[in-house]
């Protein structure tokens, strides 16, 4: 595998691989030497945070305070029109992605599907399509690739988003804008796409 340095994280000494870690550790003396991180370790780490936040929002807010719990908030697609409305987890996720996009171009992420309710969430690049195909055909596996867009080479990772409860399948299958109406529990419904610009060293 080629070695990459991601633009933004040269300052950090993070071991991307066992082979690299000895060199990185010995570079700790404060020299200007760039410390690399394998791009998949970087995107995996970003995804771990996204996944934890999404699960926690679902578990600690939507489930606990929603109709299945205290009934204090109402998770709804049109949450803005409801005084105690709160975002669906997918919308919360997108709100996060949009807030990040306002802050930085160093990475972008989105929740996509080949069968999106919101057509904005359809894959756009060839690699996104390929990635979504791959994770649907290989449940539990991630997809990693490189693509060049507008002259910039990106590392693109795609992580599966799974129908974890009947709520996922029922809402999507019955939604008027859903192009697919037979999602099943445990099925890969879409994926999180994380894209990072690369600078080949």
């Amino acid at each position, binding site marked *: 595998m080629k070695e990459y340095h991601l633009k933004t994280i040269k300052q950090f000494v993070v071991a991307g691989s066992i082979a690299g870690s000895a060199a990185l550790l010995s570079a700790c003396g404060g020299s200007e030497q760039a410390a690399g991180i394998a791009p998949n370790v970087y995107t995996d780490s970003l995804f771990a945070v996204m996944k934890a936040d999404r699960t926690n929002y679902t578990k600690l807010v939507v489930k606990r305070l929603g109709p299945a719990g205290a009934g204090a908030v109402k998770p709804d697609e049109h949450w803005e029109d409801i005084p105690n409305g709160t975002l669906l987890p997918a919308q919360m996720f997108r709100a996060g992605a949009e807030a990040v996009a306002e802050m930085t171009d160093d990475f972008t992420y989105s929740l996509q599907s080949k069968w999106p309710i919101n057509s904005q969430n359809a894959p756009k690049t060839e690699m996104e399509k390929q990635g979504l195909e791959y994770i649907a055909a290989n449940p539990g596996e*991630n997809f990693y690739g490189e693509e060049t867009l507008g002259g910039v080479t990106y590392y693109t990772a795609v992580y599966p988003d799974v129908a974890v409860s009947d709520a996922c399948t029922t809402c999507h299958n019955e939604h008027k804008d859903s192009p697919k109406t037979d999602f099943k529990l*445990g099925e890969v419904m879409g994926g999180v796409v994380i894209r990072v610009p690369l600078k080949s060293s």
Partner: protein
Amino acid sequence: MMPYLSYLAVLIVAAMLAACESKEQQLLAEGQQIYQKNCKVCHAQGINGAPILGNRKMWSARAEQGKETLVEHAIDGFGLMPAKGGKADLAKADIEKVVAYMLSQLD
């Protein structure tokens, strides 16, 4: 006469042990297959907090409950884990094989 008999006995015991061993291997291999088809989608990634295959940290407290309880939880559903992972047609024996396989990955 005697040495032959004991030699034979050793052979038989060895053969029986080998058979046990391969029976167990066989069950684990079946468990792995069922896992890949039905459970991996969540348990490879930790989707919704599913304990990741082979991750001792995530499994230790759960594994302490014992295989019986884990099988029960996998069949009935448990917290954010849907009953049988959403595959209603899986038999109890299937779930038992997967749980044995999952536990074997912690050794």
